[in-house]
Structure formats: structure tokens, C-alpha cells
């Protein structure tokens, strides 16, 4: 048994860590966040030049076929910097959906660009009524000549504002909550009838809502078999969950470091507040929560690219549940122990705290995954 990264994985992690340290100061992040793009085009270019946007893709696409642990190494470091670039949305999730469902033409059209960072993908699966259930789809795709006519609304599409291609789900048959009858389409946002409303998110990124109003797409936009996308969506959401958990670990690491520093520096009643036992114990709890989350992120990474099974489903649900709870505990405890400073926009901790809560609202919160896990409980 060995939980150490191998030499290549360690090099990969160090590369990202160096880049983030050099380019992603807290002040710079605030500036990136306020631009129209919402992140740093320059940083994205550097990720691409170092081959990092290609990590999970095959060698033909310029990548090295990286697995869950490689992705984990990248995501944790991006988490440490609270990086705003759409790595998860484009490289992992969007690229994953197209890679699994797309035919050769579609892969050729999109994947090389996504792997090189020249193109950015986003993923629109949620709808106003869906809550976190991705099989709950009301958006309709009707056969129209050779292609399809799309009508509906996709909501909270992180990174959708700047995406070159948005993978959306739409129903070609069945009722709202049927797993059967869901199809995936690769949509270019300049298609007539696609309307985007862009907004900032509470954790500093940008997203959009997408209204699809009689959007005509060709048959070549359909990714995979008509009506059979639910399994692909579930599988790739699992990969995205593993990556998001790894990001969360990076966010938690820095949150805990900042809080621990503060406990040592901040003096009240003539001693560092870290001398007070009630705060010591809370800090210990924060550390234990981080370690629980780290263990689950490792476990999630280890199954991210395995064949689908109930065991894989359970691990991913459990990981996201633990990460959601640990994230909220660390976010709230850290604010509490910082006092007012922890709520100040000008201090970095507040932004880590917000990202941890934000992560719980992406790809299902702790309750959602607890229920999912419970539904898969084994009798013995």
C-alpha cells in the first residue's frame, strides 16, 4: 500500500503549484474575478503551454492519458489558489462528455482544441426545476428535418459565458424525470435562439443561464445515441465530482493554514488566541475534517476512471457528502475563529470560505449525496 504520488505525478503537482504561486496572488485573483472574462486569459494560456489542459486526454490529442490521480494533483493546486479558470468545466467535464459520447468527427472537431486550451467547453445540465437531479430534464429536443429543434432553459452553467461549445442535455422522449429519453448536444453559443445571461457567482467565478428558443441544430450536434445520454452524464459527473473534491481539498488546506496562522498571531488578553483550549479543539476538528475530506478525495480519484458500478457510485456520493460537510464546517469555523476579519472582502480567508460553500452547491450538496448513498446501501 502506498499513498504517495509517483515521480511524474509529483512533478505535475509541483508544476501547477509553482505556476499558481507565481501568478495567482490574492490581489491578482480579485482583479481577474472582476474582468469581463472572469479569470486570467494569460494564466489559461500558461496552463495550456505547460500541457496541463491536456492532462486527461490521449496522446493523439497532445495529452498523456492522465487518470484520476493526475487530475487530482492539478485540481488541488488550482483549489489552493482559488483559481477561476474553467479547468473543471472544460477539460474534465465538457471534454469528458464529448470524449465519451462523441463520434470521431465530433471528437476531432472539439477535443484537440479543448486539450490545447484553444477552445473552452461548458456543461449545461441543470434546469430551474431540476434541483441537483440531472435526470430531471424538461428542455425538449424535437426532430426537425435532419436535425433538432431545442427549447428550454439551462441554469447556472459555470463558465458558460465564455465557452466555445456548451454541452447541454435535452429530452427527446419520456417524462421530466425519466432517465430514458435524455440526449446530449454540443451547442455553439452563437447559434440563433441561444440567449445567455451572464452573472458573477458568490465565490468569485462567472456563470450564465441559457435560454434555448427554437434553436435549430444539425444532426451532427447530437452527442452519442439519441435518448441514451443518462449513463454518460452520470459517469462524467462522477469524474467531475472527483475533480471537484480534489479542488475542495486544496481550498481547505489553505483555509486551515490561514486560520492556524491567525490563531498564533492574533493576541487577545495578552496571549495568542491559539492558547485558548476551546479554539485549539475547534482547530483540531478543522484538521480532522480536512483529513477525512482528503481521504475521500483520494478514494474518489481512484475510482474516477474505473468502469461504472454501484461501488463507484457509492464512493463518489460518499466523497461529495464528506467534502460538502467538511467544507461547510471549515468555512464556518474559520470565519468564527477569525472574527470580523474573516468576513472582510479585503482578506483572503473570506473568499476561501465562500468557495467551500459554493462547492457544496455544485454537482449536488451533502444531503443530495447522502440520499443517493442511502439508496445504494448494501444489506450487509
Amino acid at each position, binding site marked *: 500500500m502506498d499513498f504517495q504520488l509517483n515521480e511524474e505525478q509529483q512533478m505535475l503537482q509541483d508544476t501547477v503549484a509553482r505556476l499558481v504561486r507565481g501568478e495567482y496572488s490574492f490581489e491578482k485573483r480579485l482583479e481577474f474575478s472582476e474582468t469581463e472574462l472572469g479569470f486570467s486569459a494569460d494564466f489559461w494560456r500558461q496552463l495550456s503551454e505547460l500541457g496541463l489542459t491536456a492532462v486527461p486526454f490521449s496522446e493523439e490529442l497532445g495529452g498523456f492519458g492522465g487518470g484520476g490521480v493526475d487530475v487530482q494533483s492539478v485540481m488541488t493546486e488550482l483549489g489552493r489558489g482559488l483559481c477561476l479558470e474553467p479547468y473543471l468545466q472544460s477539460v474534465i467535464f465538457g471534454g469528458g462528455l464529448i470524449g465519451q459520447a462523441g463520434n470521431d468527427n465530433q471528437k476531432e472537431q472539439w477535443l484537440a482544441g479543448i486539450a490545447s486550451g484553444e477552445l473552452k467547453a461548458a456543461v449545461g445540465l*441543470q434546469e*430551474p*426545476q*431540476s*434541483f*441537483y*437531479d440531472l435526470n*430531471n430534464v424538461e428542455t425538449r429536443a424535437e426532430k426537425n428535418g435532419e436535425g433538432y429543434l431545442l427549447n428550454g432553459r439551462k*441554469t*447556472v452553467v*459555470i463558465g458558460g459565458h465564455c465557452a466555445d461549445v456548451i454541452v447541454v442535455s435535452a429530452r427527446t422522449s419520456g417524462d*421530466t*424525470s425519466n432517465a430514458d429519453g435524455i440526449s446530449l448536444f454540443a451547442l455553439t453559443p452563437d447559434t440563433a435562439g441561444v440567449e445567455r*445571461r451572464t*452573472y*458573477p*457567482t*458568490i*465565490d468569485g467565478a462567472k*456563470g450564465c*443561464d441559457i435560454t434555448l428558443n427554437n434553436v435549430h441544430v444539425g444532426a451532427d450536434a447530437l452527442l452519442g445515441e439519441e435518448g441514451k445520454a443518462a449513463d454518460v452524464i452520470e459517469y462524467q459527473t462522477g469524474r467531475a465530482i472527483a475533480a471537484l473534491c480534489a479542488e475542495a481539498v486544496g481550498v481547505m488546506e489553505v483555509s486551515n493554514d490561514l486560520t492556524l496562522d491567525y490563531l498564533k498571531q492574533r*493576541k*487577545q*488578553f*495578552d496571549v495568542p*488566541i491559539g492558547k*485558548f483550549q*476551546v*479554539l485549539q479543539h475547534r482547530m483540531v476538528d478543522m484538521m480532522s475534517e480536512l483529513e477525512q475530506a482528503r481521504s475521500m478525495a483520494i478514494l474518489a480519484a481512484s475510482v474516477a476512471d474505473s468502469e461504472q458500478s454501484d461501488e463507484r457510485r457509492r464512493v463518489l456520493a460518499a466523497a461529495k457528502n464528506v467534502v460538502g460537510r467538511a467544507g*461547510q464546517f471549515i468555512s*464556518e469555523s474559520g*470565519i*468564527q475563529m477569525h*472574527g*470580523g476579519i*474573516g*468576513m*472582510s*472582502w*479585503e482578506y483572503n480567508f*473570506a*473568499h476561501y*470560505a*465562500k468557495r467551500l*460553500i*459554493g462547492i457544496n*452547491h*455544485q454537482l449536488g*450538496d451533502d*444531503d443530495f449525496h*447522502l*440520499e443517493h448513498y442511502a439508496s445504494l446501501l448494501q444489506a450487509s
Partner: protein
Amino acid sequence: MDMNYTADELAFRDEVRTFLDEKLPEDIATKVKSFKKLSKEDHQRWQKILAEKGWYATHWPEEYGGVKWTPVQKHIWDEESCRYGVPRSIPFGVNMVAPVIIKFGNEEQKQKYLPRILSGEDWWCQGYSEPGAGSDLASVKTRAVREGDHYIVNGQKTWTTLGQHANMIFCLVRTNTEVKKQEGISFLLIDMNTPGITVRPIITLDGEHEVNEVFFQDVKVPVENLVGEEDKGWTYAKYLLTYERTGLAGIGLSKAALSHLKRLASRRLKNGKPLLEDPTFSQRIAKVEIDLTAAAISNLRIIASVEGGGMPGAESSMLKVKGTEIRQSISDLARRAIGPYALPFVEEEMNLDYEGEFLSDSDAAPLSAYYFNNRKLSIFGGSNEIQKNIVSKMILGL
């Protein structure tokens, strides 16, 4: 044991309801109930209405324009006003500095300041916390040095709530550095328009400008603005803190927030059904409602003991902890209830006069920001850790 209101108390409740039905402006109530932002003008408009009715200063003796409510009447007011969406009164003038002036101030100060608080002419803010003095408030460093008829004040205050609207600030300042830290503090009233005062906004993590830093550079304050005796300010400060603590439990606010949460959960869908019918979510709501029921009775027990002549002591600290935890749980659930919509942060949708299309709906827009804002509840007014220290020392004798 009788847990019911008397006939007189019921009559009072009717009077409160009639007054609120008739006089509470609808736009203000809507903002309060949906956690939208209130302007300075909103607060002042409502304060005028209350003052005309004679219900603004409920802690003051009648000779200064106060109204003599029993603890139960105050409780009824609190319950009803939260239910109706009455703005939380800005406490710094009417409920904080005024009781100190009434108890420790001289006649001239009473004549000068109390009427201006009643009329809304003065907006007060609180100069207590400093960068180095939070939980350890007695370590304030802002220095006041007597020079002839004036004190010269230098230093910095922080977390000054709504200081941007204020024209007056009451400050704890250090007048003696030779003695124990609690014994060298004085209580000064300072006009915010005095040269040398700078107010700098602190933006909080929800994007809100609610608190400020206030800098003092060679600020000349007339000695008649000293309350009570020099170096005795810590006694007055503590007296004020007991006023601050009452009401921090926010039982009425929690009840109003819980109704809002249930309305929200009856409209949001999960698996095609209202969230209120979802087993997981309804249990979460049930748990917080049960906790609130218990805390409300604890609150009533404290009120009843005061009514009978007892003193609210460290019990109110216990209630502050419980009450703020409950309020925080409710805002946590409200944020959870909107699922993915907790992520968008669309500030314009948080204003009542927003006329555009809502991303989700008017309810959802402020809920994440509100959740983060409410993290302050367990920090301010004495952090919950400090409250527990008080309880363990005063009640448990540990």
C-alpha cells in the same frame, strides 16, 4: 404556572397589531421580510412613525419621552414587529448610548442628546472595537489626552456598524495608561463632523457595506462630552453591553425567518415535489423549528423572571448562543433550499426596486449573501465563545 397572556396583555397585542396594520409602510415591510436592503431613509421614515406613536424609546423613563412597557409587553412588541416585517431598530442611539446617558450622564447631556435621538436628528454609531481590541475589549488603545477644555483623540475604531450614516459616535478611549487596563478607560461622545475623523468602509464577504473603520487624528473633543467620570468608562461600557445582549437572541427574527423558509420550501421543487414535503429537507426544518420552540420558552422564562423583579444575568448569554445558532441554521437552510441557485450573485436583484427578470425569483436572490452575512451573529455583541465563558464563570462557577 400560567403560560397565557393576561387580558391586558392581549389588549396590548391588539393595539400593536392595529397600529402595525395601519402605519407600517408596505414597501418597508416587504424589504424586511425578503431580506432586501433598507436605506437610511427607510429607517428614518419608520422611526418617525414610531416616535409619533410614542413607541420609539421603550427602555427610557417617561420623563424623557420613553414608554413604560413591561418585559412581557416588550416581548409582544418584538414578536409582532418581527412577524409584520418591522425594520430592526438601529440600537446605537436609542438602546445603547441613551441608557448610558440616562444613568450616568449629567442633566445638560440628557437635555441635549435625548430629544435629538427621539427626533432622529442624531444617528449614533458605536466606537468600541479596535483592531487590537475585539473579545478583549478592555485593551482599547485609542488615546484621549486632556488639553485645557478639550480632549485630543488619536486612534482607530473598527467594525463600526452603519458608521457611514452616523453624525455622532460614542467611544471608549484610553485616558490613563498608568493603571490596570479596565481602570483607564473613559466614555466620550464625539461629533463625527469634527476635523480629523475619517470613515473608511469595510466591505464584507457578501459585498455589503455595513461596517466601517473610523480613524481619529488629533480630534478635538470638548470636555463636556465626557460621560460620567474620567477613567470610569469601563463600568458604563459594561452597563451598555447588558443592553446590547438583550434581544440578540432574536427569537422573533427567527420566527419570521422560519416562516419565510417554509414559504420558500413550499415553492421550490425537488423530484417534482415541494421541498417542504421532501423527507430530508422537512426533517431539517422540523429540527430547527423544535429548537426554536424550546428557545422561545426559555426566552419567556427569562422575561417572566424579570417581570417578577429578577435580574436577567448570564442566562441571556446562554440564550444569545442558542438564539444565534438557530438564526444561522435557518439561513443555512434557506441557502440550501435554492440548490444550484445559491451560486449566482446578482446584486441588482437584491434591491426591491429591481424591475428586470429574475434569474430564479425574488426570494432566491439574496439568500446566499444573507447566509454569509449572518455569520456575524455568532461573532458580534460578544462572540459566542465569550458568552460561554460568561456562563461558565457566572452560573457554573468554573
